[in-house]
Every structure is written in C-alpha cells, then in structure tokens.
C-alpha cells in the first residue's frame, strides 16, 4: 500500500498573538507546527503501513518555513518527504494549493491512497482534500473518523447529521478528522535520525504552475467577544431566592440552562 499524505506546516494558533489595536494576528516570527489534522492523517498512514506494508510519502506546500515540518514528518516515521516552497505561497488560496499538491503528486509517482487532514489548523478552509480529489478525478471521503484498507477502502465519515460508512475502490482520497486517532509523539532518537534524512524540494517552475491567486484575503482579525457583565445585587438574605431565580432566568434566556 503506497500512501501519500498532504502535510501542512501551519501557524501554531494557540501561541499566536494578536495586535491589541487592530486585532490582526502578529505573524512575523510566529511559531509554526504540523497542522493537527494532517498529523493524524500521517499517523493513520503509518498505522496502515505497519499493518499491510508499503510506503508513506508526504507532500507539503507553503512558504520556505514549510521545510521545517520535514523533521517532524521523518521523526514520526514517513519514508520520503517532498516539499514545494515559495515565498509567495504564504498567501496561496485553496485552488492554487490543491493544484500544486496535485502536480507534485504526479511527479512523486504511483499511489493507492491519498490522505490529508480535513482542515488545516490555521486556514481552516476544509477545501483542499476535496479539490485534490476533484483534480485527480478520484473518489473523495471527507472527515473520516475511522479507516481500514484491505484490498478496498472502508471509511466511516462524520458528515454532521450522521456517520456514513463507505466502501470504495482504491485509489481514493480521504480527509481525516481529529477524532480518528491519537498521533504518536516522536522520541528523541527518532528526531535525531530524522535530521540526517534528505528530502526532495520541488520548484514551482518545474511543476509548470504560475502563482496566481484568485482569492484576495483582505483582513484577518480576532473576533471580539463582548461580555454582558450582568451584576445581581444579592445583599438582602430574605430576597436571596428571587435573586437566584433572576440568575437562572438569565441563563435560560441565553440557552445555557
């Protein structure tokens, strides 16, 4: 079973700081990490390989900092990592990213299965895996919470209103949810071995793609959450029950109770 996993080096949103005046994220020098759902996709690929054999290759697209994710990819146990980087790709939209991933996959060679996180930790568009499947003209199964491969693909997908169980031929594209597994934490010796492994850098011009984005991101800001700051004065013990009722009514009004 030869599996290709799409792995993004995303911003570590938990550590992102926001400009208090503009509400915009301060991205310069912001820490990055492997996107959470992509990490689970890689874990799932490694588990399949451990069961049925084969190879796990990864493709990562983004600005030059993306190369840093390769250490973690190898430390987890992938066989080969491929990277497409360009300064301009920091602002790539989902169409362009999917196109680049597909052209890179064509260069990587044969595969039985493509896995990706259902959405990235930072962009969170939920679009890339579906677009990759469409461009490759392959069946697509979104938001898988379980996956098994035995000649054919069996995926349980959480589609919101229900969990659907699909059986499908290979090759296919599957996007995975956060629930699908608990990814391994690489050991230090795996990290050290990973740092000695080489990876392949594809250049945009070799893929025959122009970096043109049709989507313009005008602004990214932190949502403002206004607190109601409701104060209930409960100083008179004889009226305590009324005051409690007042709090409960308010909570019911907000659908909290």
């Amino acid at each position, binding site marked *: 079973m030869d599996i290709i996993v799409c792995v993004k080096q995303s911003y570590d949103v938990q*550590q992102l700081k926001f400009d208090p005046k503009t509400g915009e994220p301060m991205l310069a020098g912001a820490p990055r*990490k492997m996107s959470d759902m992509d990490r689970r996709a890689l874990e799932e690929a490694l588990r399949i390989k451990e069961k049925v054999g084969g190879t796990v290759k990864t493709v990562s697209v983004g600005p030059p900092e993306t190369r*840093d994710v390769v*250490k*973690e990819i190898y*430390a987890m146990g992938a066989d080969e990592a491929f990277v497409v980087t360009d300064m301009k790709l920091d602002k790539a939209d989902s169409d362009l990213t999917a196109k680049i991933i597909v052209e890179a996959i064509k260069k990587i060679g044969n595969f039985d299965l493509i896995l990706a996180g259902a959405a990235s930790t930072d962009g969170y568009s939920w679009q890339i895996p579906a677009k990759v499947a469409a461009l490759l003209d392959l069946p697509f199964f979104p938001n898988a919470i379980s996956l098994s491969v035995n000649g054919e693909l069996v995926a349980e997908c959480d589609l919101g209103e229900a969990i659907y169980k699909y059986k499908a031929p290979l090759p296919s594209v599957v996007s995975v949810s956060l629930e699908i597994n608990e990814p391994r*934490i*690489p*050991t*230090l*010796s795996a*990290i*050290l071995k990973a*740092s000695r492994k080489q990876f392949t850098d594809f250049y945009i011009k070799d893929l025959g793609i122009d970096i043109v984005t049709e989507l313009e991101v005008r602004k990214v800001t932190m949502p403002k959450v206004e607190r109601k700051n409701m104060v209930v004065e409960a100083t008179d013990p004889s009226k305590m029950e009324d005051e409690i009722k007042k709090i409960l009514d308010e909570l019911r009004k907000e659908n909290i109770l």
Partner: protein
Amino acid sequence: MERILEYPKDPIITFSKEEELFRQMVREFCEKYIEPNWIEVDKAAEKDPMNMPLDLIKKMGQQGLFCIPCSEEYGGQGGTYTMATIATEEIAYSDPSVALAVYALLNNGWPFALELFGSEEVCQEILPEVARGNAFFGIASTEPQGGSDVAGIRTTATKKGDVYVFNGEKAYISGVGEVQKLPWGGGWFLIARTGGEGHQGLSAFAFLARKNGELKEGWNPTLYEDIGRHGLTTGGFIMNDFELEAKYLIGEENKGFYHVMEGFNLARIVVAAATIGAARWLLERAVEWFRSRKLFGRNISSFQGVSFKFAELYARWEAARYFVYRASRLADKIYMEKDPSLNPKDLNVPVALAKNYGPETCVDLAEEVMKWYGAYAFTKEAPIFRAWLGPFSYVIGAEGAQNIMKVIIARDLIGKEFIR
C-alpha cells in the same frame, strides 16, 4: 494547560531545531500524561510511598525520556546533555512537585556517568533496562553521619576473590522503593571505601540491589516518609556482607571520588533544570492569580509591594535559567564534542552557580506565590505547596548542600590553599 508566559527569546542561549522539536514533543507528552496526573501521583504516594507511578515511568521510558545522553548501543537516545536538561525542565513544569523530574534527571545523569567510566559489559547490562523504564539507576553516596563529607564515607567494599563484599549503611537515597518494584530492579552509582582514609581510598560501583526481578541477599532497605515530592521514594539501606561481582567496579579502584564528583556535576545541572521548570510553573500561577485576584477594588498586582517582588523573582528565574543552560552547553562541549580546550573541572563553578541559584529561586518564589494566594495557599486544595516542598529538598541539600556549592565556587576562584 494554557502557557501564560512566553518562553524567553534568547540570542545567547540558543537551541538547535532538533532541540526545539524535542522540547515541543516533551511538552506534548507531559501535557497528555503528566499534567493531568501529577497531583494524584503526589497524593497517592503521600499515603504510601510504594504507590509510585510505575505506569508513568514505563511511558516515560517508551518515550525515551531516560538515558537521553547515553549511546544508542546501550539503549540511550544518543542526544546531548542539553537535551536531558530540556526534558527535565519540561517534566518539572508539568509536575512541579518535581518527583517525576527527579526520577528522570537521576536516570539521565547517573547512567551517563556510568557510561563515562563503567565497562562496556556493565553498561550493556544495565543501561537498556534503565532507558526502557524497567530499572532505576541513581546515586548512593550519603550515609547516616552526613552527605557533604564524601571523603569520610564509612561503607566498606572488601575484595574477596571475584567479588566485593559490602558492609555499611546508606541514607537519604532516592529510588529505594523503585528498585524493589520496577520490573527489572536496578541500583545506584554507589561509593564505598576500598582503600585507606580520605578521598583516595574510595571506589565507585554499579551497585545492583535487584536485577532481573530478583533481590540480592544482604541488602536491607527501609523507606522514609518525606514531606514532599512523594512520587519518588527516599530511603536507606544496610549492607550486611552484600556481595557484588568485581566487574561492577566503575573505573579504577580508589578513583571513585573523582568519578563521583564528575557525576555530581552532571546531575546538578539537571537538578537545577528541574527547579527552573517548577519555578516557571509557579511564575505562571502568580500571573494567573494577579490577573483575577482583586482587593480594594483593583488587581493585587497593582500594588507595587506585589509586582516589584514578582519582577525581582522573575529576574532571578531568568538568571537561574541562564546558569542552567550555560552549564549544560559546557557539558556538551566537554563530554559530547570533546573540546580539547576544556576539561571536566571547568564545569565546577558553572554547575555550582546553577545548583545554588536554581533551587533557592524556586523555593523563594513558591513562598511568595503562597503569600500572594493568601489563606487559600495554606489549604491542600491549592497545589502551590507541592511545588514548594518538592524543590525544597534541593535547598536542604540533595545532590550537594548549598554551602558546598559555595565552597566549590570559593575554592576554584580563590584557590584551595587559601580557603582552608
């Protein structure tokens, strides 16, 4: 747990990408397995010291958090000493009682000291088991008459044919319970007298009280009830004609004092790392408290009596952190890179500074945080006291008394003959 304080961006003490990734992975491990459990571990072992967290030790072994600087051929991680320091700091941040950090630091520092001076056969036998979390390997130097006077050790090891026969008593030794309960067993880098009086009559041994799950005869342990850091046992043991094969002698006979002093230097770096980890947790509890606690209509940190003290303690923490990583980088240069311009004695002062400064900063900080918390800190519901009593063991004197650190600094700077 939300990280309230950003880790300092530091152009002087820098980390490689591998070290950064390793720190991230250790944090992830700690967030998953240690942070949710450390208070329960401390409570359970307070009731009975033999309630040690064996499952967690096993998991830490699987994650490669022991024998970090040891060679891969001995089951180690093949990392740097700084990587052991990073791991210890992060484990202590997630378990500020420092029990698990102390388990980890002992099982990084002393296995590495064994690898430096021990035979290949003995390393091959012990280190893979320690690395996997199946065995404990710490330090047994202190005796009932005191710990600081290493040259005055009374335990004897008399060579009879192919074995050494041990008689004597060790006290205040970490890991006495773990050696009895871990699947394989383990023991200590133990110092005993093989020659005449003074430090030149001492030898070091890989003293295995239990191996392959079997206790050896002539070893009579006892456990103490500690006031803190319960997740790691402390005890003592009496050796009555305890026999150990001669191959377990570490390095040369009667050179044990020099070997153990190098081991102490290595172990003290990670001891100080544990205290800066716990201190970072304490600093964050302080900031969290300041942001929510109001008195006289304002946050308590708006009183300069509070915020200035916080600023002073933060400065001490940064300084302690610098001492710790400066010493561990120096250890990397001496032991990993084998820099010919340096020798092991160059670690004496940097390590003594770190060991002297880190634990005191942590304990002083814990006391202040408890005062800022007010009466709540005096209840067992607030966990701050656990981060006070655990690190306090290192102010009292574990791994070298504070005054001994000052003696080392004064001796090396002023000159041995001028401080007698």
